[in-house]
């Protein structure tokens, strides 16, 4: 097949690869269903965790720091906060990754943005975790 669209781009296609080789190169993530599952599992976890956190805000709004620290130091609240932080930031970096892979088509920009999003997610998650643990102990 060799034709030109509006005379500006050569559309010659060389089908010298096997169907298996072609399909292996397809897909923005170049990987299987692990990403998909990670997004779903964290989504399911975030439904009750987010609702718990939203309801907690009513109790926390207006509290000063010592009162908040006392609330966060309860083992149940500490564990739920840690679960919320882990699920939120894992879900967030998986979701933002897909948005970048879908819409940023320049390889260098895409790679840079992906690294940046992953790095920011890890740093924010660690900042939240250390803070929750510091309040707890």
């Amino acid at each position: 097949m060799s034709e030109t669209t509006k005379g500006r781009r050569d559309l010659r296609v060389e089908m010298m690869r096997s169907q298996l080789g072609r399909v292996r190169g397809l897909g923005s993530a170049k990987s299987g269903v692990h990403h998909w599952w990670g997004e779903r599992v964290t989504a399911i976890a975030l439904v009750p965790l987010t609702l718990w956190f939203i309801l907690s805000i009513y109790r926390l709004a207006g509290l000063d720091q010592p009162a908040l620290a006392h609330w966060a130091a309860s083992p149940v609240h500490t564990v739920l906060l840690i679960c919320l932080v882990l699920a939120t930031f894992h879900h967030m970096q998986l979701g933002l990754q897909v948005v970048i892979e879908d819409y940023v088509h320049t390889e260098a920009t895409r790679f840079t943005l992906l690294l940046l999003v992953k790095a920011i997610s890890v740093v924010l998650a660690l900042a939240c975790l250390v803070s929750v643990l510091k309040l707890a102990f």
Partner: protein
Amino acid sequence: MPDIRDALLVTRNTEGKLVQRPLSPFMLGSAYRFQLTSLLSILHRLTGIAVSVGTLLLTWWLVAAATSPEAYATVSAFMRSWFGLLLLFGWSASLFYHLLNGIRHLAWDGGIGFDLPQVHASGWAVVIGTVVLTVLAWAAGIAVL
């Protein structure tokens, strides 16, 4: 053609000429007419990005709480300022939308609600649910505080 994958984006139009297929999200408006489903789909991503930005406030809030009473008083004052309340309102609406539409997506993953009338019904339920939850949450907030 630099990439073999681009071959899949070439098609013939009704006049038989070779054209390149448009890529998402540049299909809305030009190639596709407006639909509730496509609007809700892109809104899911936009609200996901908004909630991601909102995690900055969650981080600031937790770090300040673990730092000092003064730092915590600063973040509390910011959240009560008009700008802080505006951000919180936007993030709460985004979070409720992403939460409800996320449940809609999980149902689809389970093979539930795929018929077009059901897709439209659940779409409207998400829109109405977002408005109701956001209004309720802020009404409760004003009543409690």
